[in-house]
């Protein structure tokens, strides 16, 4: 009973709606015809079939209209026919729209605003909470006179570094990159400011300005791109976490299927391990070779051998001065695995670097010569989307600097620094990351246990990451 009543209501309603639908339909048909005319040249064959369908739709609509004009007695039938006519007309319209969709789109209108040439601006925000059994600012890496950036984040809440970068093509031949960071103490520092060539022939690329050296594997990656919250011990001890300076870089990529890249750099020599811009402002030279390839569908590798020579004139490390030469060789190996090369769900990155170097000259006026080495190995495994787990072990060592310097920072007092780290990471997306990191650190005489909580977010047009 209810069903019949509802059906009756529906039919009555549809009947009254039918009349205006016919008027709209006539207007629609006119529009469709106009569209047909314009498209006819390109789509003549398609159009012919569509026209046939349209004509049929018109006939049906006309029949429906006539039936409707007869009114009352056959409202149900008229409604049904009208509906089918509408459907057919709709089908024709859809077919037409599809035909239009296949046509090439009109060229996009150029942006009219005068800021259309603004560079890509990206910001990296960071935040730390550090709980540690000893003050992170008062621990030393035994045997090494380290720079001012070699330490860990402050105890308690702190920001670490907040970064802003601006990147853009300057013209067809050059691109520019500017990156500055604001530290906890509100000091601004220019991390990178360089230009790079885009169209040199033969696989060459030149870079000039202030930039992070291509030495090692981690060095030229920005801190927010590292797998752990802090740099591994050898980077902190040998390179003050990261070596960047003012200079010139040339890279050449060999035209081979095996990735093979050679690079060389010359720097002013103002940043640790160099100092004082020795040799008339050409205090550091480096050379490196990178090679890598796929092992199979699921795994790939990158290996690198780097050499860095720097000269220090009165390098100041917490009130102690070094003048002399520093030589450093780094052997790097990175292996990545993802099932069938699809890292979305699970993936693994293993990396290890071996540092071997020599420092010789005068430390606080005392002549010395010292061999130094360090290494780390780390693995990060993403075990499900957004979640990963990592482990790292690092170790340092120095030879005896001689009796005159026993008890100084260069004397490891029989204690080789080492640290073991575990990491749990949750990514809110590829632009947001939360980390919980625990380190048991024996780099000073007494061990330090540190728990670090870190967030890192990136916003703005952030470019793709290096391998």
């Amino acid at each position, binding site marked *: 009973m209810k069903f019949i009543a509802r059906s009756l209501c529906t039919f009555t309603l549809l009947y009254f709606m039918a009349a205006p639908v016919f008027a709209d339909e006539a207007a629609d048909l006119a529009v469709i015809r106009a569209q047909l005319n314009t498209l006819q040249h390109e789509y003549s064959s398609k159009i012919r079939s569509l026209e046939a369908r349209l004509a049929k739709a018109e006939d049906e609509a006309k029949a429906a209209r006539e039936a409707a004009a007869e009114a009352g007695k056959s409202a149900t039938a008229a409604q049904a026919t009208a509906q089918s006519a509408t459907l057919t007309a709709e089908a024709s319209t859809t077919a037409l729209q599809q035909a239009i969709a*296949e046509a090439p789109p009109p060229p996009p209108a150029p942006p009219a605003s005068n800021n259309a040439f603004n560079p890509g601006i990206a910001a990296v925000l960071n935040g730390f909470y550090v709980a540690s059994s000893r003050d992170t600012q008062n621990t030393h890496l035994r045997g090494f006179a380290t720079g001012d950036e070699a330490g860990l984040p402050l105890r308690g809440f702190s920001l670490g570094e907040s970064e802003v970068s601006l990147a853009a093509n300057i013209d067809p031949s050059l691109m520019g990159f500017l990156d500055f960071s604001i530290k906890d103490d509100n000091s601004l520092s220019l991390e990178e400011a360089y230009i790079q060539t885009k169209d040199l022939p033969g696989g060459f690329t030149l870079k000039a300005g202030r930039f992070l050296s291509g030495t090692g594997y981690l060095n030229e990656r920005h801190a927010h791109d590292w797998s752990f919250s802090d740099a591994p011990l050898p980077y902190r001890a040998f390179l003050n976490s990261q070596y960047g300076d003012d200079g010139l870089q040339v890279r050449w990529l060999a035209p*081979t299927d095996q990735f093979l890249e050679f690079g060389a750099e010359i720097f002013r020599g103002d940043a640790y391990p160099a100092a004082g811009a020795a040799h008339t402002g050409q205090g550091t030279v480096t050379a490196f070779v990178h090679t890598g390839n796929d092992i199979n569908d699921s795994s*790939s590798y990158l290996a690198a051998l780097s050499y860095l020579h720097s000269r220090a004139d009165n390098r100041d490390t917490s009130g102690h001065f070094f003048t002399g030469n520093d030589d450093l060789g780094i052997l790097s190996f990175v292996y990545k695995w993802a099932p069938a*090369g699809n890292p979305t769900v699970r993936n693994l990155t293993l990396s290890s670097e071996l540092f071997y170097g020599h420092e010789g000259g005068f430390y606080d006026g005392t002549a010395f010569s010292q061999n130094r080495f360090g290494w780390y190995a780390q693995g990060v495994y993403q075990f499900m989307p957004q979640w990963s787990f990592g482990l790292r072990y690092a170790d340092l060592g120095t030879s005896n600097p001689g009796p005159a310097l026993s008890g100084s920072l260069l004397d490891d007092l029989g204690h080789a620094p080492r640290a073991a780290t575990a990491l749990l990471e949750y990514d809110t997306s*590829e632009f947001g990351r939360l980390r919980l990191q625990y380190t048991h650190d024996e780099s000073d005489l007494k061990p330090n246990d540190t728990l670090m909580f870190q967030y890192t977010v990136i916003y703005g047009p952030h470019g793709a990451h290096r391998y």
Partner: protein
Amino acid sequence: MRKILIGAALAAVALATPAYANLSVFACEPEWGALASEIGGDKVSVYTATTGAQDPHQIQARPSLIAKARSADITVCDGAELEIGWLPMILQQSGNSRIAAGQPGAFEASRYVRLLEQPTRLDRAEGDIHAAGNPHIQTDPRMMLPVAKALAGRFAELDGANAQFYAGREANFEKRWNAALAKWTAEAAPLRGVNIAVQHHAWIYLENWLGLHEVVPLEPKPGVPPSSGYLAEVLQKLQATPAKFVIRAAYEDDRPSSFVSEHAGIPAVVLPFTVGGTDQAKDLFGLYQDTVNRLLAGLKK
């Protein structure tokens, strides 16, 4: 050490001698690699950077890809920001100006069709959205026609001596493609108006072609993995508006669609998404034949 370096350099030069082919093509996705082979024949050598088992949004900028891009004459990619997470790094590190953005050697298929789902709000809070519109145009085979035409034109521009050859192969492809299109469209007729659920917002063009009706996606926002709470919402929606099946691409994690398939009692249909996504999708023709076959099989389950 020095000897090893010199040896390596010599080996590099020896390996550098190019194999014979007029154009060296770096295809970002298998469907565009397959199309480049259809149009270019033996006048091009095609390297395909990704496989059907990989998510084209998330590719690591591996050394092997940089090495291949170094000597490419043209990249044939989807564009519309699909490759934004990896291709720019490869281009930059390759130092190859022939394939830099804006050069004739940078071909983007999505420029030659009308993109759907252009976002009205450009905000990362909306998930992994693409400013130009939905980039997954290859799920509709009709898109291959304008792209093939444009690609033949581009090959001719870079390799004028073989312009006739490319145009001829394009015309031949168009003929065979139109015949195949008619066949697939006829076969797929029972799919018109069928309700479906999708795992990723990647099927709008397929839905458009076959008249499928998307009831609900299994991700709250494009590229955002579903939480269990969201999947519960999906199940509720599917109770109100039942779908015939849930589809996912071969490269995608099977867990969300398996979960929904199990709890909503509808089959999960795995589609190749690109050439090589399934064993049957061996080439472009196989890709769409297999897509239609699998959808029809899903209807019968």
